[in-house]
């Protein structure tokens, strides 16, 4: 989907590979035809040949119309619906994407789809929860978002496109891990820088501390008692007890 400046919206829809059911359809048609013929032959052996010529094509057509096309069209419809929904936003979300918001990868299914859905859902934050991803949260909003992830992956959108789509709608907040570029990259750069700064402060502090006692040890003892006669007498007694000679003049 594209919107021009005048607000005209155009939609581009790509038919996904889920439309390709020709082999499956052929196989199912053959099974249906065989089942009808065997039943009719047992119940009406005399009229079977002439009746089957008329009714067989009609029966097959009815089976095709009722059983197979709805399943195929439902899958195709789901694929087209999700492409319709997200392509317009994605076309704006990633200007470098040359695919106008259309799927850039291979459609996933089965176990690969389950695994990729879990992986991508773990990278998308639940907007109504506290610190959990949409893969972990049981909230209905998270479940809807996880379903959206699954549908996008099934339609052929890549992991990057899925994340871009959610970021376009919710902002970088929706990422479980902040991006490694722009202002949010501060959260990746700041911790090691602050750690380094802290280590430098500790190193300088330790170096200064180790120098200070050495300087104190080499400096002459201050004549603290020189101006205090009372303290000087006590100091002389202590030094005498310690066997130290009193300084000159005391």
């Amino acid at each position, binding site marked *: 989907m594209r919107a021009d400046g005048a607000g005209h*919206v155009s939609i581009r829809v790509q038919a996904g590979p889920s439309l390709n059911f020709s082999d499956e359809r052929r196989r199912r048609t053959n099974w249906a035809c065989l089942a009808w013929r065997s039943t009719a032959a047992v119940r009406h052996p005399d009229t079977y040949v002439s009746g089957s010529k008329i009714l067989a094509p009609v029966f097959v057509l009815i089976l095709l119309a009722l059983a197979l096309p709805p399943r195929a069209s439902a899958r195709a419809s789901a694929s087209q619906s*999700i492409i319709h929904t997200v392509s*317009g936003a994605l076309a704006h979300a990633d200007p470098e994407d040359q695919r106008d918001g259309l799927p850039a990868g291979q459609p996933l299914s089965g176990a690969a789809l389950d695994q990729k859905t879990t992986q991508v859902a773990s990278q998308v934050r639940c*907007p109504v929860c506290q610190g959990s991803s949409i893969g972990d949260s049981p909230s209905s909003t998270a479940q809807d*978002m996880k379903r959206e992830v699954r549908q996008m992956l099934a339609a052929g959108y890549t992991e990057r496109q899925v994340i871009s789509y959610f970021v376009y709608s919710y902002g970088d907040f929706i990422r479980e891990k902040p991006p490694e570029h722009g202002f949010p990259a501060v959260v990746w750069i700041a911790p090691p820088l602050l750690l380094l700064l802290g280590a430098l402060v500790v190193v300088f502090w330790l170096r200064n501390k180790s120098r200070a006692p050495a300087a104190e040890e080499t400096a002459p003892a201050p004549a603290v008692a020189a101006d205090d006669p009372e303290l000087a007498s006590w100091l002389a007694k202590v030094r005498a007890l310690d066997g130290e000679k009193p300084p000159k003049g005391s």
Partner: protein
Amino acid sequence: MKAGILIGGLVVVGALVAVLYSGFGHDPRAIKSPLIHRTAPDFSLERVDGKGTLSLAQLEGKPAVINFWATWCDPCKEELPVLLQAARGAKGVQFVGIVYEDDPANIENALARHGGAAYPTLIDKGGHAAIAYGVAGVPETFFLDRTGHIVAKFPGPLEPDELQGYLAEIRGSGS
């Protein structure tokens, strides 16, 4: 040296206090929408009244108010009469209600309690539209100008004067 440590400590503490102070009075869930000034995401949803579907493209050329709500949400029920009354009186603005994770019978009952629908109400099965608009909780209201660009987003229930202010804004922009 001691003065340097004191100044450094004051700078760090001052910065932390400034960051914390800026968060006071700010709802952490009120995240600014990245969709502001961008083209509103398209949608095509079924109407609750059974009159087919409605897409954004059908609102082309008119300022629009798109309100995401649900009947199980109490603030939405408070807001509903405000929106219905404004829609009945507003000229040249298209109101649209998009109901999220709800049952059509409950929606009809909620609307009937306030004199019936005054604008199309759509059902968002699977929440595709809500996700496309980055809705994190209901109610949330988006205001679109006549070119289909989102002018503002309001999380939470709107008061009449707030709503009138936004209506004046979208009437005047995009022309």
